[in-house]
């Protein structure tokens, strides 16, 4: 069953665990119209050429709704992979591979944060050892400096700046930042502060 939560100022958030039978862990994450399906395979066997002797090799694949992955998807893949690497205790599973597949079901804005949340939920479902959880937050700033958290596609287009953060749960520190548009340093701290709430 899908868990649904409503927070003031955010779109409806929903999450469902273990809905796929083949992967070791799976989750779907819904933020308003944006929806992502994630599957985690691993720790599993790995090709000798790619194995690392002291930790697990983590691989992230982003599948767009239609067509082949473009370079923007590659960019997302790298951001998500590095984020996951910093929380997964990979040293517990050396010489294995952990594969995370993220399928876009619908992109209605804030896609990167939805990717991050879905990946985190699926990793939990797979029972991977992690030292913290993380959550992705996207916020948009419009011309007057008004902050919108979890913007939809329309808000994103009209806004001057879109920032995405990944924040880890234990100490509320920033793991990942990605941004679009110009903004002042002060606005970053405001956005960060708001995102942490």
């Amino acid at each position, binding site marked *: 069953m899908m868990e649904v939560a409503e927070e003031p100022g955010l779109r409806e958030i929903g999450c469902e665990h273990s809905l796929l039978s083949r992967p070791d862990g799976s989750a779907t994450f819904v933020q308003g119209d944006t929806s992502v399906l994630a599957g985690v395979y691993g720790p599993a066997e790995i090709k000798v050429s790619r194995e690392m002797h002291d930790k697990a090799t983590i691989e992230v694949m982003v599948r767009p709704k239609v067509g082949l992955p473009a370079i923007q998807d590659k960019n997302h893949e790298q951001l998500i992979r590095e984020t996951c690497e910093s929380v997964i205790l990979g040293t517990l599973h050396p010489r294995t591979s952990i594969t995370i597949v993220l399928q876009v079901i619908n992109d209605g804005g804030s896609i990167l944060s939805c990717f991050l949340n879905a990946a985190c939920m699926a990793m939990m479902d797979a029972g991977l050892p992690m030292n913290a959880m993380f959550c992705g937050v996207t916020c948009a700033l419009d011309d007057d400096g008004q902050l919108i958290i979890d913007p939809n596609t329309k808000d994103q287009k009209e806004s001057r700046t879109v920032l995405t953060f990944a924040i880890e749960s234990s100490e509320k520190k920033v793991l990942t930042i990605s941004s679009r548009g110009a903004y002042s340093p002060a606005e970053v701290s405001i956005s*960060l502060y708001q995102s942490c709430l």
Partner: protein
Amino acid sequence: MAAGFKTVEPLEYYRKFLKQNCRPDGRELSEFRTTTINVGSITTADGSALVKLGNCTVMCGIKAEFTNPPIDAPNKGYIVPNVDLTPLCSSRFRPGPPGEEAQVASQFIADVIDNSQIIQKEDLCIAKGKLAWVLHCDLICLDYDGNLLDACVIALVAALRNVRLPSVQISEDTGLAQVQLSSKSPLNILKSPVSTSFAVFDDTYIIVDPTDEEETLATGLLSIVTDEDGKLCTMRKPGGSALSPERLQDCISRAVSRHKEVQTLLDEVLLSVKTQ
């Protein structure tokens, strides 16, 4: 002795230096490598620049060509950046289509161009809906030694400021373009973004301008792009060590001061080329 220690325990070797607030190559933690800029060395390109950060070398060549404007924006032109990491610059890259790092770097440069509004894409339109310029910006790494993104951004801005486009008239009789190679004009560059990259060691030490070795040993990387008004254009932190908002602010202030250094250098170099 020292060389053996470095090979066996590279991380411990670095920690010993970092404890003394310096690095194996003699730099302080917040010190950049020597930055060298050379513009206009490639005469077959419409604009070019060679940038060196210590050993890290990136060449940017820009070629301008005619094309049809995009259908959804008939008054705009194109800027197409592409970062090439060939086996020439480091043995870690394989020949063939661009790998993940090259794709990520290309996307980063494209983001910087879009976010900072270096030039108005409307300026690249020659005749609305009919003819526009496309600027092919090819960034080729010649020697890979860490901090690729900073070098790429400087090379891109220097090359764009070096571009001279021939004047074009649309003939009224034939509707075809006529190009005057004798009269050339520079692009209208509105902003000059500068990128500053940091590496985090053991969640505590933050160093700027990491070398290849430092990048592989570091636990986190961060790139901040600023423009001359002290505004941030792009921030990119792909995972790694978590940073508190306060440390992030420190990095941002270092990025703003770095922008001034690079800006002064760029202005000097471009002025010296003009007066030659």
